[in-house]
């Protein structure tokens, strides 16, 4: 074979040196990096060395867990702002093709996208030769029951509870991500040339009377468009603001819930719920996290004890004498 290799190796071996010049040494640099002698942290995981870790984890996790658990359980009391949710079960808002079926540009107020929605919206892109606004399956399947809450006092008429429509969506969604199309004085004009989604009863510009909560920036709509991660989910419907510090937001008593039934769930064996909840710093009521922390903290602590025993029993084995096993 290969005289070429021969020559190559030679040439490769180092740059040719000038005749008469000193031979270039090919000795590799004796640096810590090249000689793989970089100072390194070399942890040796034995019972003795990691013992503190387990105890520390235990000692930190258990209090945290208790804290979370207590916080979560305290959510029961209806104080402060009360959040009103509607819940749907067995509704796969996370179905792959469902999730995709929207046009963010259209929702962002892009006028060209308004009249020519993305293909992703198919088959809810056009209806009767008119582009649907908002297009797509998500918008089409928007929850459209109305919930009204009444307090039945001791006496005669049920007093309606003030349900705040605004403030239920993310600020960024309402102000940045969702925008009504430009132009026109009134909303109807801006949505001119589009048609309502098939399942909707009224067009998008008639979702609410408040112009600041109408069209694409309707918060019910925005909330619905944030597709739920799991098939059983709740979505924020209304806010019940506390009136004063003295009274509970929702005083004890009998309440009356009036539901305008528009949304069929039977086809997918779904169930609807209405949830009233307050939220703490860690969100809604969920004991899981607290219990999990307590459990893991305890396990860690237990392991620490076991390791302590092991370390005690095999004390010799963790020092150098061990080498000679």
């Amino acid at each position, binding site marked *: *074979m*290969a*005289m*070429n290799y021969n*020559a*190559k*190796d*030679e*040439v*490769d*071996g180092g740059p040719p040196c*000038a*005749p*008469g010049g*000193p031979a270039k*040494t*090919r*000795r*590799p640099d004796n640096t810590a990096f*090249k000689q793989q002698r970089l100072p*390194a*942290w*070399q*942890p*040796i*995981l*034995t*019972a003795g060395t990691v013992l503190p870790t387990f105890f520390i984890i235990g000692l930190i*996790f258990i209090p945290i867990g208790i804290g979370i658990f207590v916080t979560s359980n305290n959510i029961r009391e209806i104080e402060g702002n009360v959040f009103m949710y509607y819940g749907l079960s067995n509704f*796969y*808002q*996370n*179905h792959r093709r469902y*999730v995709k079926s929207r046009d*963010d540009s259209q929702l962002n107020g892009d006028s060209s996208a308004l009249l020519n929605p*993305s293909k*992703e919206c*198919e*088959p809810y892109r056009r209806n009767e030769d008119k582009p649907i606004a908002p297009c797509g*399956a998500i918008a*089409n399947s928007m929850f459209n029951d109305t919930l009204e809450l009444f307090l039945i006092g001791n006496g005669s008429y049920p007093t309606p509870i003030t349900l705040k429509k605004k403030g239920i969506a993310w600020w*960024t*969604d309402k102000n*940045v*991500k969702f925008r009504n199309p430009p132009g026109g004085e009134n909303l109807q004009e801006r949505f001119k040339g589009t048609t309502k989604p098939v399942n909707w009863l009224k067009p998008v510009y008639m979702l609410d009377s408040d112009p600041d909560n109408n069209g694409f920036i309707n918060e019910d709509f925005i909330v619905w468009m*944030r*597709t739920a*991660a799991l098939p059983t*989910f709740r*979505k924020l419907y209304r806010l019940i603001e506390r009136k004063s510090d003295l009274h509970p937001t929702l005083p004890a008593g009998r309440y009356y819930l009036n539901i305008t039934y528009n949304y069929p769930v039977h086809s997918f*064996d779904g169930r609807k719920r209405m949830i009233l909840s307050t939220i703490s710093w860690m969100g*809604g009521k*969920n004991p899981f*996290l607290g219990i*999990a922390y307590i459990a*893991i903290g305890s396990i860690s602590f237990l*392991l620490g004890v076991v390791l302590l025993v092991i*370390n005690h029993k*095999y004390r010799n084995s963790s020092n150098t004498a061990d*080498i000679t096993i």
Partner: protein
Amino acid sequence: MTEPRQWTRRCWQRLIGGAARDDGERSYDYSSLLACGGKVSQTPRPAGRHRVVVPHLWPFKDEYEKFPGAYVNNRIRTTKYTLLNFVPRNLFEQFHRVANLYFLFLVVLNWVPLVEAFQKEITMLPLVVVLTMIAIKDGLEDYRKYKIDKQINNLVTKVYSRKEKNYVDRCWKDVTVGDFIRLSCNEVIPADMVLLFSTDPDGICHIETSGLDGESNLKQRQVVRGYTEQDSEVDPEKFSSRIECESPNNDLNRFRGFLEHSNKERVGLSKENLLLRGCTIRNTEAVVGIVVYAGHETKAMLNNSGPRYKRSKLERRANTDVLWCVLLLVIMCLTGALGHGIWLSRYESTLIFYIPEPDGRILSPVLAGFYMFWTMIILLQVLIPISLYVSIEIVKLGQIYFIQNDVDFYNEKMNSTVQCRALNIAEDLGQIQYLFSDKTGTLTENKMVFRRCSVVGFDYCHEENAKRLESYQEAVSEDEDFTDTLGGSLGNMVKQRNHSCRTVHNGPMGRKPSTHVAGSSFTLGSGEGGSEMLHSRQAAFSSPMETDVVPDTRLLDKFSQITPQLFSPLDETTQHPALETLHIIDFFIALAICNTVVVSAPNQPRQKIRCPSLGGMPIKSLEDIKNLFQRWSVRRSSSPSLAGGKEPPSGAPVSFVSRLPLLNRMKLASPVEEEVSQSSGGSACYTDTEKQNRDESPMNGKGECPPAQSLASSLCYEAESPDEAALVYAARAYQCTLQSRTPEQVTVDLAALGPLTFQLLHILPFDSVRKRMSVVVRHPLSNQVVVYTKGADSVIMELLSAASPDGASLEKQQMTIRDKTQKHLDDYAKRGLRTLCIARKVMSDTEYAEWLRNHFLAETSIDNREELLLESAMRLENKLTLLGATGIEDRLQEGVPESIEALHKAGIKIWMLTGDKQETAVNIAYACKLLEPNDKLFVLNTQSQDACEMLMSTILQELQKKYRVSSEQPSLRVDLLRPPVPQDSGIRAGLVITGRTLEFALQESLQRQFLELTSWCQAVVCCRATPLQKSEVVKLVRSHLRVMTLAIGDGANDVSMIQVADIGIGVSGQEGMQAVMASDFAISQFRHLSKLLLVHGHWCYTRLSNMILYFFYKNVAYVNLLFWYQFFCGFSGTSMTDYWVLILFNLFFTSAPPVIYGVLEKDVSADTLLQLPELYKSGQKSEAYSPLTFWITLLDAFYQSLVCFFVPYFTYRGSDIDIFMFGNPLNTAALFIILLHLVIESKSLTWIHVLVIVGSILSYFVFTLAFGAMCVTCNPPSNPYWIMQEHMLDPVFYLVCVLTTCVALLPRFTYRVLQGSLFPSPILRAKYFDRLTPEERTEALKKWREAGKKNQLPSQCTDQSADKSGGRPLPGPSAVFAMKSATSCAIKQGDISVCETAFDPQCSESKASDMAGSSGS
């Protein structure tokens, strides 16, 4: 033309290789087998086409232009790509990789709307990144080749130009077929050309072919018949002939064609007339030739096959696991498809969240499930780690970088360090189980050093010489400036000479245009003294260590007795027998001429030295000497009293001596002599008179060869074997200098007698059957025909004249000499010296004529020619008179015994395969600790297959018996795949097998038995093995035992073995570059092997295997998150993470740490690994990466992904969380889990690790934050707008991440902790060593060793037997020899021999009783 063909072949090989072929078959490089004499296996081109070459000069222009474009010019291009075709061709090549095709398939699949899972473009990203990276790598490699090609193409040579009527400088690339080229000595031949003229009067040109076949000896080429006779140089203008020859082919040993003169006369051409590209002109002042093949059509280029593709065992293993991953993927996708079908079939009516097909149709569950299967494949594609292959390549590059930068591999003398020629099998170094080593040049230095000699029964031990060698060694080890410490200026002179001699060896293609001026080339030579190319040349130009021999003072004394003083009539005290003196003269003459050494002067241009003008020597004195010799030989046969050696020669010496002063004045004093006398420290061997003579001598010597004085010291000897050169140098030290050699005569300058020219009558070259060589010369003094024979002691001793006609006394003396010499020989052999016997025989002219006639018949016979020649040689080489014996040392390389010991401890079985004879091989085996004195040694040396079989079964039975006794295992079923582990059984056995027997053992029927036998032995020595046998042995072991093999060698004869083994290592040393070129790694010394294997091999293996495992873990863990989510989204293929984050997660956020881990991980420090070679065994057993560890890793990955999914799931269940809000903590926790998992697995963490890990985490957060902030609508239809920002403000996010990470890592962490405390592996235990101070370390090491011994229960016996045998002399090499001779006797008797060796029965008894005792108690 040929290049595309090679390319397609390579492509094909790669395709085959890429198709997950697991048997590890490799395409062998036939071209180099060819160099070893193998047959050409590439199909030669159709011979029907011939090529016609006419001079490239204008008178023939018309004719020349008839072949336009038919012949390529001399430009070469070894690059794969050009600028234009780089992209398509590289892509084409890359898509031959199955993995890449798979990902291409995924990309295409994603474009199918029905199954599309991601955005179309996004799936391409990983593939594009991978392809780009590989393309950049390929491009850089190719660019390197391009630069080298350019360098070679621009070398300058002298081409005849009609315009200038002279030879002008032109670049190699501009040389075309038909050009006339004139080359000076030491220039490299630019193209294949027919030799038309040589300055040599005989029309001979010497070329060195080491660039082609690695053989450094010179080969002769002959000027085309008819041109030899021309006195002047060939004139291209007048050259009117045309050459017709065969089409280009790759057969180096064939060239056919004819040269047709203008008068239609044809002259045949053969390979003898062809100068091959890449060879170097030697010993010839200038040559002229006409180019017949150029560029890629030269034989050298046609033999230039591309690099070999090897895949390491680890990678093969990884590939099978990739297949497992594919299976896993299919299962997961099937689950998804099935789940989707079932999910869909639950609903009867149209679903509000289920989008119908564009045509409004609802898919049937079955069809939807089918589509979902493919969607899932796209979604879960990451399970097949595309980045794994890229990462492996990067990691390997990093590993190679560190290997090449290891300062321990640096060889100061050669200025060379380890060369990694194969980039992708470094991790195989950590799994070697069998090591096959060449002996000469690999274990030994292949520097033959004359150590001792025995002449006429007297041993001359050359103590000064020994001292010199020691000091040499010290000088070398202490300081590279070794030459000054010994031999004084002579050393310097030799060194300088070496440099100037080597000047031209800039490799066959030359690094730069060769300069031809002596002076400048000298500086050039010293400038490049470090290039390893130079050092491959040392066979031809020996180092001062070999060339300087300090004479033994006693012998020198005796030698000086041939000076007149001895014979002076005034000196009454000299009573020494002249016979001895004459024997000594003959002995040294034999050393000087009984060889095939080529003599050359180093000055430029190198030329053969001949002194044809020896007639200038005064005939008169020569006549006198002749008379003397005649008289002596007459006396020898007639006078027993002289032969008895008791009386001084009475009459003859008087007349003899009276003439000697005259004679003495004739001798040429050489500087060597002077140096020698000085360096030998006042040995007082020169009398005043002699010095006086010495002073006179330059004047006297004026008559003959004028430059003789400088000549003697500056002669270069080029020998086929280093032994020959060593002997010639030894003779020179005794002022018996070989001065010139031509086919007809040899001239020896004998100090005392002046130059003697021997008429060379015949040479019977060395062959391995006769094990000897002879020269037949006519002695210039006695005018008799004398046969000098040199050969193996065993042979020569049998050929000595049994009965002497001169009666009892002489015979008796001969017998004493013989016995004494034999004793010395045994002594030499015991010291590991290579022994040779020198003998002579005087023939009468009639006897010679008789023999010659018969010999001629034999030479000319057609049938049985070989046998007849052998017989003829036998007729000549008999009734010899023993002159003496020599002991040549082929010194072990530094550190070889230690290395072999360490490798043994590492559980590597070492086989020594050598072409040497048994005795030498066994000796060296003992010297390098391959065999221990306590070893039970078996010798397989039989003449027939049946005998071999019987012998092997006998040995096996015995071994099994012993094993049963020592290990108390009732029955032992020896499974070939799982051989018994004898190293634990307490029996240490070695096997010696000769080439002949090896042939039987390699037969199909005996293979099994042979392997079974060898599996019992730690060491196997195969002697007299041919290159083919070497490779067959390796192949046998490799394929039948399924073990990892490594072959190491330095010469062309090791090439086949190097190529067959899993890893081939070339020792760049004495014998050319052939082995290095065929090898995967090239080192300069054997001892580097131990660090290469024990440290780098171990590291590379553990690093890469851990990294691969980690990759599998990482991908499975991450992909499973997606999989678990499918259970909650109707198996619809939704990803809860943004696609970009999903893709980049693997591509960027978690890719660098494993690579760093794969490059820098260090489980145990280098020192500890070297001190505890046992740690290597973990690699041999593939402990780091076995199916078990793979599945455990996968299980862990499953567990971690479950935790990572379900902790957030339970936390957020039932809440208003949206998809990406749910995915983000999952993703973030996964990142921490995956990175911290790496931290747990890392055994050492440097700042680089920290940097990369922290960097990865930061880049993840920076990316998600930036992406979340800026991308409002940019990534339709889904985007993670403001998700991370929301989460960063949410304490639950942190709580979830922390909890998830802790829960996921807890089991592995706990397992590692428990492992560290309760059942640490040897490697974990060895880690403690790194924390100790040096003193503690030695202590701990001692303890470790003791404990190791205790643990091996059966080995107690070994210890005890060693203790017991301590009292008596250990059965050592001598015992082996005794046994060996017994064997040979046995063979003669019954064709079967049972070799029970030096193992003494008492020991085995004691073993048995010990065992019985221990079992009883």
